[in-house]
């Protein structure tokens, strides 16, 4: 079998500080296949953006890849010198950021920013690049592209600007796009349009997407697989139906409590009491244990690693206990075991 497009192996992103090293992304692994859309969800501060930044090689110092590797088409890219990584950025891995209002340089026309990107990565002539720029604007649905190509970012509305940003990210047909909350900053009414556009373009071009979002509705409609991140770790990763309909990890379970329609921000995950621990006080064992209704002895001692459960991988001791097939089974198994141990305790006490 061919290598997946992107492989992330045991990635660690850390911040060396005076008081020791903060580990913001802690030993995560996942793949993205050709043309696949991987949704990444999780509370604020879970490490989603840092993972994306590590993949495009633009972690901001003092952030750094502390361990692990990132492979693109089987070739390691996390340790490339700046200049080699620069050639990959834009050409093989595109990126889309949250805020379209600030992603474009206000002093250059959108055409100039497009042609600049195109000519950096190809040997097109300026005339050809300009034609291509107009073509791209057409493709992302900007009306009268031949005229608007010479306009400046401030002459475009927010939604139109995000279309331009998408055109820029896809300008030279990258194999993968890292889209970090591409619609969060936009008006709710145009979020769905932008997501639909991104989805359509990537499907047409066979571009894989790592889509970071808070919006479970977007994930449900767009992603092929979902990774749920919690405190710098992957709690659960699997096919989108599986994760949404049949969540396995207790955290995912809480997350899926209600899935609002596209456009509604599900940032506040109120159904799980408590909040994610800060990087400085992640508990021993499972990072989720203070909030987990199913937490039991082992959870406070050992850290669970993602293990295959059905088509997913889940980092939760529940599934180790009984090799359980479903969340309910797992809960029951643990409950049973705890009853047993309680009974044992009582016995011991009686002796």
């Amino acid at each position, binding site marked *: 079998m061919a290598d997946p497009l992107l492989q992330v192996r045991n990635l660690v992103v850390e911040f060396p500080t005076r008081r020791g090293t903060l580990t913001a992304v802690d030993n995560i692994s996942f793949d993205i296949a050709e043309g696949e859309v991987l949704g990444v969800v999780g509370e604020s501060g879970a490490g989603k953006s840092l993972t994306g930044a590590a993949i495009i090689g633009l972690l901001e110092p003092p952030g750094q890849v502390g361990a692990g590797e990132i492979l693109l088409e089987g070739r390691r890219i996390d340790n490339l010198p700046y200049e080699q990584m620069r050639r990959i950025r*834009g050409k093989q891995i*595109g990126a889309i950021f949250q805020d379209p209002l600030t992603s474009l340089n206000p002093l250059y026309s959108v055409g100039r920013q497009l042609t600049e990107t195109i000519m950096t990565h190809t040997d097109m002539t300026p005339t050809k690049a300009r034609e291509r720029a107009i073509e791209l604007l057409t493709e992302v649905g900007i009306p009268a592209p031949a005229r608007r190509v010479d306009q400046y970012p401030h002459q475009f509305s927010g939604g139109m600007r995000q279309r331009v940003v998408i055109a820029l990210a896809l300008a030279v047909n990258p194999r993968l796009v890292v889209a970090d909350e591409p619609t969060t900053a936009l008006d709710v009414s145009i979020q769905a349009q932008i997501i639909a556009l991104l989805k359509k373009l990537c499907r047409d071009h066979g571009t894989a997407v790592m889509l970071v979002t808070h919006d479970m509705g977007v994930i449900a409609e767009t992603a092929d697989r979902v990774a749920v991140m919690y405190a710098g770790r992957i709690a659960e990763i699997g096919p989108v139906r599986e994760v949404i309909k049949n969540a396995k990890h207790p955290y995912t379970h809480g997350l899926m409590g209600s899935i609002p329609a596209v456009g509604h921000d599900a940032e506040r995950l109120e159904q799980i009491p408590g909040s994610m621990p800060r990087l400085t006080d992640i508990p021993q064992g499972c990072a989720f244990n203070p909030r987990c209704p199913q937490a039991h002895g082992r959870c406070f001692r050992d850290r669970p690693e993602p293990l295959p459960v059905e088509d997913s991988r889940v980092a939760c001791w529940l599934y180790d206990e009984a090799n359980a097939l479903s969340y309910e089974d797992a809960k029951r198994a643990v409950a049973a075991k705890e009853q047993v141990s309680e009974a044992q305790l009582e016995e011991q006490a009686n002796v």
Partner: protein
Amino acid sequence: MVAFIIRRLIQSLFVMFFVALVSFSMFQFIGDPVNQMVGVETSLKERAELRERLGLNDPIPVQFFNYITDAVQGDFGISYQQKRPVSQMLVERLPATLELSLISALFSLLVGIPMGVYTGLNRNGFLAKCFLTISLIGISLPTFLIGILLIFFFSVTLANLQPISIFGLFMLDPKIFQLPSFGRGTVVDLGWWTTGLLTVDGLKALIMPSITLGLFQLTLIMRLVRSEMLEVLRTDYIKFARARGLRNRAVNFGHALKNTMVPVITITGLQVGSIIAFAIITETVFQWPGMGQMFLQAVTNVDIPIMAAYLMLIAFFFVVINLIVDMLYYVVDPRLRIDTGKGSGHG
């Protein structure tokens, strides 16, 4: 764009009008012009005649009107002390000051901007930290002290040094680095303009005064460019430019530096104005035959026509520079161009 320029022109006219008012009132409040012009033995009758001839008996508004109309035509009256037309004296002195100011401004920009970019990009580099430390000295030392230190080293100390043998290969006479400490050196006369830019001697004479005059602005511009660069480099569009795989040069200079230009242009404009105005000190230290020196002499002699004319000329330079700065904004920043509608393509 045209409407904007016209608006700015009208504003400039107002500014000039008020400066003229201040200049004019100097005549009213600082001494009696007639006393300044005549000797002790002039009779009262002669004084009265002179007063009449100068129009000093007219109502003040009429006098002011005459003053302005004359000034617009380049007539600033006659120097009390030298009995020559002030405009003629200014024209003689103008090239020295403008050349000095121009070279200082170029020096501060051409050195200050690259240093600012460098220190912005290599925030923690050793050299960048050196630059910053040195710039602190540049900002805190007063101009005249820098000038005097330069003179002390390049004119006095070097003149007293003996030739040194370099590795026994050849003799190096420190005197070849010696720089003149006063005057413009040899100047070439181009009709109404005299220039020191065309002779080695004239250029050498410019070096120390320009450094003295420009050093403060250089450090200011360097620090400004540095902080603007740091600011811009954090923006999303720079991150996005990097994410698009643009070359470092394109990101740093094409995208980042250009975005620092609006504040830099503003400050530079103001600074060029103050360079011209503060040339007074440098001109005094280096015996530079410019307008500043003339102004100081005029102050000593209470030569009001010269002081008034100098004031108006400096104000005029500020106004012109401000106009140029405003137009440069237009060139640099498309957001300011009138055409913000979704209409025509080119701004």
